[in-house]
């Protein structure tokens, strides 16, 4: 068992009601993400309002809530797909105010999409190579003239792509067209592609949607593995409560665009407001 895994098991959750949900081990390092009073309106509809959250350096956080609660909108705000109408986001100590999606990604935030957005007509490997765009670079001229930098860069990209694909044991699929992969594999490829951008915060929008229970189980282990291996923070939106409760250290519940609860899985499961709004009454047996 690795050092980090052991450390994780010993970790006691410290819910901080005024701020967010920070595991103890991250107390002494600055948080990776701080969202303050974040909000957005769509023509009068407040899709997200007064969203406050702090995520620790190596925390796995969950974002749950009923359909239409504003979870995906939060991701779009954090990745600057939408510009917030209120509040601010700090990523690794940088204010994201006024920046665009590309700049936010370069500062260390990567994501997957609820409705999969792969480059369907490209190979699995090329999808990952696009994720490596800003990690292994060479210029246009070098590429056209096939200068030594091109061969070196291509070789590095190829090796790095296969290494990343091997996280999900997908290295043998490298030459397959991404659009022809089964659904579950497409979701995994999106995670690999996002990881390739070398993020410090990885946002996963319903990563287990459309997966069978076996695949979900495997994904759960892999999410923890990715965090341990890359030492990054992960925030995930998910409707599968087994996955959320199994892997998340801190959970944030959203309803009608507002946070109604924050805490450890145990606290969330026994929180009457959350049960009322989302989880529903526990079934007998």
């Amino acid at each position, binding site marked *: 068992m690795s050092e980090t895994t052991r450390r994780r098991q010993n970790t006691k959750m410290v819910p901080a009601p005024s701020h967010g949900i920070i595991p103890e081990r991250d107390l002494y390092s600055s948080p990776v993400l701080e969202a303050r009073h974040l909000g957005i309106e769509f023509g009068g509809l407040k899709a997200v309002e007064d969203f406050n959250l702090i995520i620790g350096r190596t925390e796995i956080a969950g974002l749950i809530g009923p359909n239409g609660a504003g979870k995906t909108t939060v991701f779009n705000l954090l990745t600057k*797909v939408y510009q917030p109408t209120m509040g601010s986001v700090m990523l690794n100590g940088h204010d994201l105010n006024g920046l665009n999606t590309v700049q936010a990604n370069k500062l260390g935030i990567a994501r997957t999409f609820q409705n999969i957005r*792969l480059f369907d*007509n490209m190979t699995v490997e090329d999808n990952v190579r*696009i994720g490596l765009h800003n990690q292994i670079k060479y210029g246009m001229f070098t590429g056209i003239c096939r200068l030594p930098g091109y061969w070196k860069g291509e070789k590095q990209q190829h090796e790095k792509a296969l290494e990343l694909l091997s996280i999900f044991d997908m290295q043998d699929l490298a030459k397959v067209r991404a659009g022809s992969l089964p659904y579950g594999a497409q979701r995994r490829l999106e995670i690999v592609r996002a990881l390739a951008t070398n993020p410090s915060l990885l946002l996963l929008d319903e990563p287990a949607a459309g997966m069978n229970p076996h695949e979900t189980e495997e994904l759960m282990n892999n999410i923890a593995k990715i965090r341990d291996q890359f030492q990054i923070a992960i925030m995930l939106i998910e409707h599968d409560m087994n996955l959320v409760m199994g892997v998340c250290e801190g959970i944030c519940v959203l309803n009608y665009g507002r946070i109604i609860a924050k805490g450890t899985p145990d606290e969330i499961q026994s929180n009457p407001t959350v049960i009322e709004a989302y989880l529903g009454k526990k079934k007998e047996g």
Partner: protein
Amino acid sequence: MKLKKSTVNNLISFGIVIIAFIICQTMISTGVMKRSLRGQMIPICVYIVMAVSLNLVVGISGELSLGHAGFMSIGVFSGIIASAWLKGALGLENELIRLILSMIVGGAFAGVFGALIGIPVLRLRGDYLAIVTLAFGEIIRNVLNCLYFSLDGRHLHVSFNNPSIPGTILVNGPNGAKDVDKIATFPVGFVLILFTLFVVLNLINSRSGRAIMAARDNRIAAEAMGINVTKYKMMAFVTAAVLAGMAGALYGMSMATVTAAKFKFDTSILVLVFVVLGGIGNIWGSIIAAALLTVLPELLRAFADYRMLIYAIVLILVMLITNNPTMRALFTKLVPRRGAGQKGGEAL
């Protein structure tokens, strides 16, 4: 060393183009080729380059450009002027060097205009490029109609709407350029095709090319991966403009007279027709469509009245061939075409 599949494919396409050139060149030197057809060889090269470069914009970067002939005309006139100046002012007699330098000048001017259009327009989302390039093509033609250039010793004179300028007139407003030094040759045209293929195919199979295609296939995902979409759309657009400018310079110096009126909207659409018929994103298809449809009117002269009928039939045949799944699969093997709307080959 084991070669990559894309490299092998590129080598095959280069091989086919070289073989086609050797056949044409042999036919010309042995006198098998008719005189009228011989005159079509340079225009064929020019239109192949035009089609392939437009395909870089339309097929690979997914933006619609309706003013490709505008870049060609900039190349035509800047190339002709550069050639006359190099000869008159610098006394450069060597025709090959002069031709190549003029083509570089033509490409550079077209590239600058491409950048001027691209910088504001490609920042926007939506089909603005089509509208702006359409306007650009018309504006540049009308402006060129009013421009007069002359060479007086070592000095180049320009005037707007005023034909009375000193020295020998190079470009005479609406009457265009007359008595152009016809220094363009078929071998140089062939080399330009190879150069174009080299640039476009190598670009597609590189980090930048993948970024261009990522921006085309899914802009939001590309941006989330940290790809500066505007930058890569610019890269494709300006590269295409440079290549069109070079083709234009070659074209200008293959004609005794050229007027700006030649490069109207119809010419832009003609090149777009080559691209669409050859298959959007299919470089190889662009080459075939451009070559076939450029020689066709000349070849069909013998059929007199049935000319347009046969032209229409060939158009349909080209469309069927380039869009037929089995033929497309064959083309995919010949030329790497990770293009849009590729519904054919499932496995790669």
